């Protein structure tokens, strides 16, 4: 017999379900702003698919949890219950909880936890609570949601002892509504059966306002003759009231789920869903390439100069197709930034409710495409900036009114192309940076020595310093000491940068500039002896030629030069990487001032060759890891150039200094 492992379908199930959850969330948020019945249907369908999938793929906890949510949605769908804020809130938390379950499922951990169990009870309570109102007959029996599960397995001798389970079950049935499920698994074959012995067992569900004692009393006389367990059908913890109250604290939970999610996605190799149109265009291009190749092939057989122009045409075609093919292949890794933006409506809603602020979220350019790796890593910094904007940027409604602005603050997320980069802007129309507070804080932290004559630009830059937070009160939203410096570092790690513009009273704009892809970088190629090194353009501050006397030697063998009022160390690339033929005198070569993590150094090279795009090849995969080198690329003449890892080089420099 061949066995098909159902586990191979898990990944698809997870992906589809997470998409379903996204759709559910979007529809719920739309409902929150007054939607139509079709939204309810789409939410129901998503929940239903997840329930079905969970049951099929062996996640009973998830299936039973979703079942409760589905029951509630069913009531809404049938018009038995109006969709209101508490229900939307409850369903949104259900979405969060399911996401958590999927994370745990992917990590192979148990799905249910205290949070999911309590939410399940609340869903059940929400479903149950409404039943008495809708069905008048049930209203006569109070607390329909409470009940007991009784496992009852008589010992073999119970019948002979004169106690009949039939009588016990009748007594139970008199207490409330009894659902009986007989367990026949231990009944022996007729031939082997001693009819005076009992081999049956029962699982009983007793619903109604029944006390445990009342049930125990029924079994009082047979306690010694049977195995018995009595457990609450609905855990007693939350009484049916808390649907509204329990909703108060979802923001934190949502955030926690968010971090868990990104953690799970980072340790997974990942896959990309590619639109069929992209694949089709790739196939077309490959077809073109084959034709071009066939055309060029002719010249191998016979070639005379009269056909030179044909050859040139063919080569030009080949170049064009290759370039387009490269772009298309890159395009496969490109995903719309909308998939990151999607989380913000929910975030903004939760935050603004929690803070009592009114926020209108505008999102523009969701279709702008970004490299998948960049996309995955930009999510957290964006969340941080959006939180900051709502927490610190936008003012409370009364303050806004006093300042003559609309009570509703506007937060705009916009993504667009600019040159070879993607720009994401987070714009708020709040109070702007508090210049005085920032300067005071920076003085206190010793980041600056004097507040005099500091430009707005420099003030903006201060908030990116490690450990900087001006929030008067540390809220649990932002201002936990992990701040803008982390945002900047994350963005820089992606080869991008963050800029801030602020006008007092008019708002703040954060501009994140990101490379289109991590696979190609813009670099400056520099010659060092016979070698060529690529310095990433984003790290370069300036290139200068230094006179010999501008460089001071310091004890320990280091060299410093003065640059804009500061002394920067010089890193001689030829020493660093051992190029013997390089120029030795400072005045013969060039110093490229580069920056990473807020530190600047001067790289000494022979000369600059020019700016170029470099396709990054992994050095680790093809050779081994080298400190100070982030990768390699192949130059037009076929030789290999190494790409300098500026941050790594500066770390190396620091270590040498410390040693």
């Amino acid at each position, binding site marked *: 017999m061949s066995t098909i492992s159902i586990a191979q379908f898990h990944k698809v199930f997870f992906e589809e379900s997470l998409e379903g959850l996204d759709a559910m969330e979007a529809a719920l948020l739309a409902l929150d702003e007054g939607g139509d019945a079709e939204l309810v249907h789409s939410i129901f369908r998503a929940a239903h698919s997840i329930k079905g999938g969970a049951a099929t793929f062996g996640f009973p906890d998830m299936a039973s949890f979703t079942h409760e949510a589905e029951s509630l949605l069913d009531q809404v769908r049938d018009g038995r219950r109006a969709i209101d804020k508490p229900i939307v809130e409850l369903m949104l938390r259900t979405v969060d909880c399911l996401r958590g379950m999927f994370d745990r499922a992917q990590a192979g951990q148990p799905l249910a936890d205290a949070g999911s169990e309590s939410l399940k009870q609340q869903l059940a309570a929400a479903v149950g609570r409404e039943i008495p109102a809708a069905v008048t007959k049930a209203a006569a029996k109070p607390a329909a949601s409470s009940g007991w599960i009784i496992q009852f397995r008589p010992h073999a001798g119970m019948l*002979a002892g004169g106690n009949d*389970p*039939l009588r016990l079950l009748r007594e139970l049935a008199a207490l409330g509504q009894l659902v009986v499920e*007989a367990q026949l698994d231990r*009944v022996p074959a007729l*031939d082997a059966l001693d009819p005076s012995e*009992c081999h049956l067992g029962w699982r009983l569900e007793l619903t109604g306002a029944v006390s445990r004692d009342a049930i125990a009393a029924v079994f009082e006389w047979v306690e010694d003759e049977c195995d018995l367990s009595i457990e609450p059908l609905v855990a007693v913890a939350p009484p049916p009231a808390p649907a509204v109250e329990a909703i108060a604290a979802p923001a934190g939970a949502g955030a926690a789920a968010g971090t868990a999610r990104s953690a799970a996605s980072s340790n997974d190799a990942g896959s990309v869903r590619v639109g069929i149109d992209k694949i089709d265009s790739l196939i077309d291009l490959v077809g073109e390439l084959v034709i071009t190749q066939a055309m060029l092939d002719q010249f191998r057989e016979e070639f005379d100069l009269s056909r030179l122009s044909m050859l040139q045409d063919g080569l030009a075609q080949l170049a064009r197709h290759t370039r387009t093919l490269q772009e298309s292949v890159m395009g496969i890794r490109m995903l719309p930034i909308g998939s990151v933006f999607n989380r913000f409506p929910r975030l903004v809603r939760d935050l603004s409710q929690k803070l009592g602020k009114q926020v209108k979220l505008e999102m523009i350019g969701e279709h702008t495409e970004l490299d998948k790796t960049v996309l995955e890593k930009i999510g957290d910094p964006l969340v941080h900036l959006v939180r900051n904007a709502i927490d610190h940027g936008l003012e409370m409604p009364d303050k806004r009114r006093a300042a003559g602005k609309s009570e509703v603050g506007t937060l705009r997320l916009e993504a667009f192309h600019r040159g070879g980069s993607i720009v994401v802007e987070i714009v708020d129309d709040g109070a702007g940076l508090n210049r005085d507070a920032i300067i005071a804080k920076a003085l206190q932290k010793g980041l600056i020595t004097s507040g005099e004559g500091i430009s707005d630009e420099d003030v903006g830059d201060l908030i990116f310093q490690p450990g900087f937070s001006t929030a008067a009160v540390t809220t649990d939203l932002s201002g936990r000491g992990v701040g803008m410096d982390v945002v900047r570092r994350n963005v820089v790690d992606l080869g991008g940068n963050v800029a801030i513009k602020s006008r007092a009273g008019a708002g703040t704009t954060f501009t994140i500039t990101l490379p289109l892809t991590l696979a190609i970088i813009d670099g400056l190629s520099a010659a060092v002896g016979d070698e060529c090194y690529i310095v990433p353009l984003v790290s370069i501050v300036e290139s200068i030629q230094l006179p010999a006397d501008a460089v001071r030697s310091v004890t320990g063998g280091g060299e410093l030069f003065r640059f804009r009022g500061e002394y920067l160390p010089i890193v001689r690339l030829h020493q660093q990487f051992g190029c013997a033929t390089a120029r030795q005198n400072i005045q013969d070569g060039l110093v490229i001032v580069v920056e990473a993590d807020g530190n600047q150094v001067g790289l000494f090279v022979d000369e600059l060759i020019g700016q170029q795009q470099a396709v990054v090849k992994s050095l680790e995969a093809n050779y081994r890891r080298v400190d100070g080198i982030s990768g390699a690329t192949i130059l037009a003449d076929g030789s290999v150039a190494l790409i300098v890892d500026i941050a790594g080089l500066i770390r190396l420099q620091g270590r040498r200094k410390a040693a």
Partner: protein
Amino acid sequence: MGGKSKGDAGTSGGARVGMPADFRIADVMDMHRQLRDALNVSPVVLDGTTVDRVDTAALQLLVAFQRDAQKRGHQVSWAGASAPLYDAASQLGLAQTLALPAKQSA
């Protein structure tokens, strides 16, 4: 006790098994024997129309028979089931397993 069971082997290779009016633990041995015999033939018609009193032991016996007969691929049908038989089987969650006919008014 009082009720006498009538079990006549059918001439057409089948059997009809009637149940006593008092079908309880004290009288199940006789029924056990009859049902064991009935396991060897098909089809079997069970007659529970006259059952007045019934208990868990009796129903367990019927469950075991019904299950074993099915395993052998034999046909078992009901000539009828009295209200007490039906009620007791339902109460124990066994009515479906026994494939009892719909409740008859006594």
